[in-house]
């Protein structure tokens, strides 16, 4: 087929005798074109490799990173403490005694609020707690401090001032409560979760 085509082209050129056309349909042109094909295939493979490298990089960077759940965890911790301190909008029984924070409640805070800061024994977490909780109790009108509860690893609090993905996750929340005698209180809860090694690469 190609042979016939070549012959026809050749004949046609001979009849017409045009120099320009003879250059276009000359065998040399096809040889030149085959070189071009090779160049195109190298170009095509290089494009393919670039696309593949981009996909591999994106997938590896997305799925290689661990799921960072520290912020959610800190929020849940704050919610748990809030639920523990309040009951239907009123401050829970036993939190305040004589207008001040109860010492009994403070001492048994973890038991009262069902909190357990034990973690898995990896990355030296058994020796250094991965949580920190700070509660401030204030008179709503005068802003006088009525008591304070500090639990967990206090060193984590400094990490809240730092920026960056390796710093612990901190949630600072205030809420307003009243007691049965309509005394108004402001409670500040700071929850900090570290667990950096399992949440950040």
């Amino acid at each position, binding site marked *: 087929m190609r042979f016939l085509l070549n012959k026809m082209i050749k004949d046609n050129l001979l009849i017409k005798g045009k120099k320009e056309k003879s250059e276009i349909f000359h065998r040399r042109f096809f040889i030149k074109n085959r070189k071009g094909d090779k160049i195109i295939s190298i170009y095509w493979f290089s494009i393919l490799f670039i696309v593949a490298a981009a996909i*591999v990089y994106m997938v590896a960077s997305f799925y290689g990173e661990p*799921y960072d759940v520290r912020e959610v965890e800190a929020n*849940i911790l704050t919610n748990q403490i809030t639920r523990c301190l309040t009951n239907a909008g009123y401050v829970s029984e036993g939190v305040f005694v004589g207008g001040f924070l109860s010492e009994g409640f403070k001492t048994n805070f*973890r038991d009262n609020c069902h*909190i357990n800061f034990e973690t*898995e024994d990896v990355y030296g977490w058994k020796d250094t707690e991965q*949580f920190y909780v700070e509660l401030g109790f204030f008179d709503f009108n005068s802003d006088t401090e009525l008591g304070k509860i500090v639990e967990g690893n206090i060193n984590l609090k400094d990490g809240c001032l730092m920026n960056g993905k390796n710093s612990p996750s901190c949630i600072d929340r205030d809420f307003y409560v009243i007691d049965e005698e309509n005394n108004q209180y402001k409670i500040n809860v700071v929850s900090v979760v570290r667990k950096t090694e399992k949440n950040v690469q």
Partner: protein
Amino acid sequence: MRSILKNKNKRANVLTENIIFIILNLVFLSILMLFVFSKTGGAAILEEKYSKQIALIIDSAEPVMAISLDMEDVVKTARDNGIGPNDAVSITDNIVTVKLRDKGSYSYSFFNDVNPTIKFDSRKGTYEIFIE
């Protein structure tokens, strides 16, 4: 006669080149797809995802709660690796462990001081978490 043979050879060369080119492309793309699928649906990823998810669910739960979790992909992956659904997810003290491979597992702790138990309901095909 010679030119016919030459042309035939040329055609054979073009065909072989094209076939090699297509095969190389297919091999290349299948390796790429294998990599993507192994990364996205890997046992290690599922272990991390579900251990953290279960730990967070327990953190936000309260006593006398029953939670049902549909984790079809966990059951499938565990079975593929010869691990029973009841051994795939376990809770010891306050640590959730998901194990979907022979070598390796992923654990994550929860701070809620409750006593949860987890078991696989083979009838429903779901995991049931009971908070006491």
